[in-house]
């Protein structure tokens, strides 16, 4: 059956990113570049996870490559990826009628709302390892989940005030939808303006999926990964301990407070999280161990979040 979508008119993958970024920039967002560490979701970038803490308002948007080693399929499944791309928008505090703003962004990427079926269905988000949860929706477009919309309520085990609105677009799914494709790998990534030559998602990324799936499932060295996990954890834990002296006890040295590397500690915690995911994909974590290791990582992430909040208070006061 011929497609009812005019493919030439739909946005390429990169145009989709440009358009959404432009849209949110025009609505007051700071455009940040993707975070340069492995994360499982845009939420884990410090631009979301840490910035939602404390009272300071922020509007920020960024595309975030998100790695989920266990979801890799060696590039053979048309709908699953080791690494997918999210477009993450944080609105702190969320403006009134933020849903309407979101719908405008869909119009901006070429979705005529009258020609589609859009529903906001309850979907509450929870990340126990980050002590974080929120309520919200999955946005369904003609039966496809294209966006996760969340009002953050807690992060790092702390209540948030003000709360933040988080909009996470699943870019591959939206591109697949716009271009009416059964396989992610057929998504047109870019089109040469002069020749019209197209480059597909598969041409750009398939080899990554193949190699990283193989690494996660077959090659990653389990004893080394455990060692990495322990090293990252130990260093992160040491920083958290140092923070007790520098941030939580009376400290006259304002510069030392300002310079305390909470962000460094957070990166170490993220490293632990990614290493855990690799071990998990490798099948190296038994169900019994799982709970324990997750609790260890939770300690790190929640510990860092508490430090970040405290440091924020101290530096704001100064």
């Amino acid at each position, binding site marked *: 059956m011929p*497609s*009812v*979508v005019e493919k030439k008119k739909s946005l390429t993958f990169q145009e989709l990113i440009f358009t959404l970024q432009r849209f949110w920039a025009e609505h007051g967002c700071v455009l940040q570049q993707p975070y340069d560490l492995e994360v499982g979701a845009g939420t884990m970038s410090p631009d979301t996870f840490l910035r939602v803490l404390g009272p300071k308002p922020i509007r920020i948007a960024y595309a975030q490559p998100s790695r989920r080693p266990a979801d890799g399929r060696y590039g053979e*499944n*048309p*709908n699953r990826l080791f690494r997918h791309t999210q477009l993450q928008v944080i609105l702190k*505090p*969320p403006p*009134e*009628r933020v*849903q*309407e703003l979101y*719908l405008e962004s869909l119009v901006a990427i070429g979705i005529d*709302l*009258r*020609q*589609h*079926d*859009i*529903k*906001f*269905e*309850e979907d*509450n988000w929870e990340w126990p390892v980050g002590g974080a949860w*929120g*309520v919200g*929706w999955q946005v369904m*477009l*003609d*039966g*496809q989940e294209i966006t996760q919309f969340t*009002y953050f*309520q807690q992060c790092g085990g702390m*209540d948030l*005030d*003000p*709360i933040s609105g988080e909009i996470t677009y699943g870019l591959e799914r939206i591109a697949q*939808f716009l271009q*009416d494709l*059964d396989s992610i790998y057929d998504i047109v990534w870019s089109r040469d303006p002069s020749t019209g030559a197209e480059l597909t998602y598969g041409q750009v990324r398939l080899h990554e999926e193949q190699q990283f799936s193989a690494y996660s499932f077959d090659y990653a060295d389990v004893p080394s990964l455990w060692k990495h996990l322990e090293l990252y954890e130990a260093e992160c834990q040491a920083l958290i301990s140092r923070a007790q002296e520098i941030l939580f006890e009376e400290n006259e040295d304002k510069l030392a407070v300002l310079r305390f590397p909470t962000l460094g500690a957070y990166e170490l915690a993220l490293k632990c999280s990614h290493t855990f995911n690799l071990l998990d994909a490798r099948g190296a974590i*038994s*169900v*019994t161990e799982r*709970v324990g290791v997750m609790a260890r990582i939770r300690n790190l992430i929640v510990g860092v979040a508490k430090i970040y909040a405290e440091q924020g208070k101290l530096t704001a006061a100064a």
Partner: protein
Amino acid sequence: MPDFLLEIGLEEVPARMLASAQAELLKRTLALLTREQLVSADPIAHSYSTPRRLAVLIRAVLAQQPDITEETTGPAVKIAFKDGAPTAAAEAFARKSGAAVSDLKTVSTPKGDYLAATTLKRGRTTSEVIVAELPKEIAAIYWAKNMYWRAGKPERFVRPVLWLACLLGEEVVPVSFAGKTAGRATYGHRVLSTGDPFEIVSPQSYLAQLEGEYVLADVEVRRQKIRKALDHVTRAIPSARWREDHLLVDAVTHLTEWPDVLLGNFEPAYLELPEEVLVTVMRDHQKYFAVEDANGKLAPHFLTVTNIALDEINTPIIKQGNERVLRARFNDARFFWEFDQRTPLADRVKLLENVTFQKDLGSYAEKSRRVRSIVATLTTLANSRGATLDADIIGGAAMLAKTDLTTELVKEFTELQGIIGGLYARSQGISAKAADAIYDQYLPASAKDGIPRSAEGAILGLADRIDTIGGMFRLGMEPTGSKDPFALRRAANSIVRILAESSLPLWLSDVINASTQAQDTEAKILAFFTERIDFYLREGRDQAYDVVKAVMAAGHNDLRDLVARAEAVTSMRGSEDFLAVSAAFKRMKNILTQAHAKGDIPPAIVDHDLLLDPAEKLLAVTASAAASAIQELQAERNYGEALRVIAALRPSIDDFFDKVMVMVPEDDIRANRLALLNRTLEDLSRIADFSEIVTAG
């Protein structure tokens, strides 16, 4: 009198919470208006909801409360006046009453003369009452999960409140909640309407005006529109019908403001996958209705309920999108189905060593071994009582029952655990009996489900659950109050239902003993089950609480027997003779209890030579004859007839109490009469403790 309208505009409320919130808002608003004397005793009231609004409309509301004249009594006259002059007490009372001392009256009471004042309490306007009181009612609505959204966190609600509209007749009532003050503006459908607010003219025009902006606010109207559209669209396929699913109709009704229905197709090749998997994907993951042919077989179509009016332009677009999503989901399911089959269930038994059941109770492999030993015990018992069960088949099913937890398909569709195992077992050539037992092991999962189809499935279901209950109780993790994290109550409810509704010759004690030998745990589990059985009789069998108490008191080990006794008692309890006998039993019990308190313990045997009065001789004979008749009838489970035998004792019992005095001074005669009562009571209480039956009022 004006009508009253309140509409709360919200960001999309979770579908599962709408119906109860709508009902609660109506109940609270009505209670408020009634409490404040603003409506008649039985006002005409309606409530509406869509994902984006909750509304109530109440007809004929007073615009104003009536004024109330009240007489209040003040201090005693002798305190109020001293030497003819008013004291401070009199002044204070006058001030409080808003009157001058000279306006106060004197009333005489039996305690003496008192000052009194007549005060007029002005009724408030309805608008004042609503503005002052309604916000508290809105704030008190229960939500399963709610949220903060405004800075400073002044309130929690299910989702941000976007607007309020509140009218009394054509006048706005400026009630405020969550930072919004009500006006008369509302919004239509998110996409089909203009997006701009419009003004509600009056409560009467509310529904029609919304409909003009593509919102059907009346839930029932929406539901009917959906059902009709499902029928209509399905007619495009000859002799097909959509598969009835009330819960799904409910869900999509609460997900739409302007519903329409679209028919989509999938490739017939997917029909090779088990129907259970296809239907789960469609229903649970996509909220699609399945379509079946005239024989009830799944057809390669689906129906989706849209929240937009469908036309020639958007139909092909929306159809294509939904079909692509379903295709991807079915592809995944097919991949998992084929992938899983590469490792047969038998090879997955060892994989269960790595799947934790509970940290102190070990892995699922260990659980499977325990369950196998429990099913062996239960099978032997059942066979010793005449059942003909194949122990090997049930034992084999027990070992494979949990292996589907290691399959990709169950990881993807957890709600299909058991079912997937059964399907794989069947396609891997495991006996049909074992495959069905695995398939049915989680039945009944809810009150609506049936019990397992076969005795093998029933035994497996009993064993799996009692292992969990026994294990958790041994760890001290029994449910307390509202906390039941391991759903042990539900597990026990299922055991009770299987024992009461299957034909297995097994009793509650068999099941409990098969899992635990520890005395104290056993007692706790028994007490826990007693509650569940009580619950089952009342909720599952609609038995009155006194009947339940009465039959439970006569034993609750054989649950099928218990149900039969309860039903017999219920069908008899209208009879006058039966009620009279029940009252007499109560009297006997009281006499015995009082005698016991005085140290009068009746001997076990009635001495017939000591029976003096003809009435007591008669009772001894008739009761003993009845006892042996009942014993026979009970063996046949003919409880109806047994109860008629008991009711027929009424004349001799009545006669006994008319003519015979039990507590006579002569020790031997008194003791013998107590023995007669005791004997009668014991013999006739094997069906139920009739003294528990409420006979008066």
